[in-house]
């Protein structure tokens, strides 16, 4: 199947989950990454159970924050 990951079209096998995609894409500091699937935010608890399908669009967003101390 063809999916779009961070703006790039990629070929992956059917049945790929969001969690597996994070591994395959070698996402650094994955614990701090937010995932959107077709513009909807995917809850971290659902990464293992959310199965991607043909034409899906996935974005990885790093949490961006900080503080003055």
């Amino acid at each position, binding site marked *: 199947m063809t999916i779009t990951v961070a*703006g790039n079209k990629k070929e992956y096998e059917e049945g790929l989950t969001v969690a597996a995609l994070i591994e395959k894409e070698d996402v650094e500091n994955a614990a*701090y990454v937010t995932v959107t699937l077709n513009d909807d935010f995917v809850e971290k608890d659902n990464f293992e159970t959310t199965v991607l399908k043909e034409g899906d669009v996935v974005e990885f967003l*790093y949490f961006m924050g900080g503080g*003055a101390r």
Partner: protein
Amino acid sequence: MLKLKKEHYDEIVKHCVAGLPNEACGLIAGTIDGDVKQIEKIYLLTNIDKSREHFSMDPKEQLAAVKDARANHYTMLGNFHSHPESPSRPSEEDKRLAYDSTAEYLILSLQEENHPVLKAFGVDKEKNVTVHEIEII
């Protein structure tokens, strides 16, 4: 070297002053040519923490900025945030939450009234901080 247009610098300062007493934040996008990173677009984001000591960017606004930058063929270069009451240097929390060793982390200090100080930093995977030169053009 980071190149920042004066109009964008003014936009950052205005956004951060408007956000007082809380920290304000945003994203910077542009082009990379060798060692030169040229900022071409500034995204003014909401600090959902609404705190004078912390910031977290609104993920929905972050997503919109990423998509807009891509549509304009820009690279997301990094982010900026303000320190309303402290100097322009990464705090321990800033360093801990700096997950991208290639990103530019801009900090605008508003500690001194009418004397904003903007500096850019890199934070490597070992959390070592490097000061990067900013040229305002």
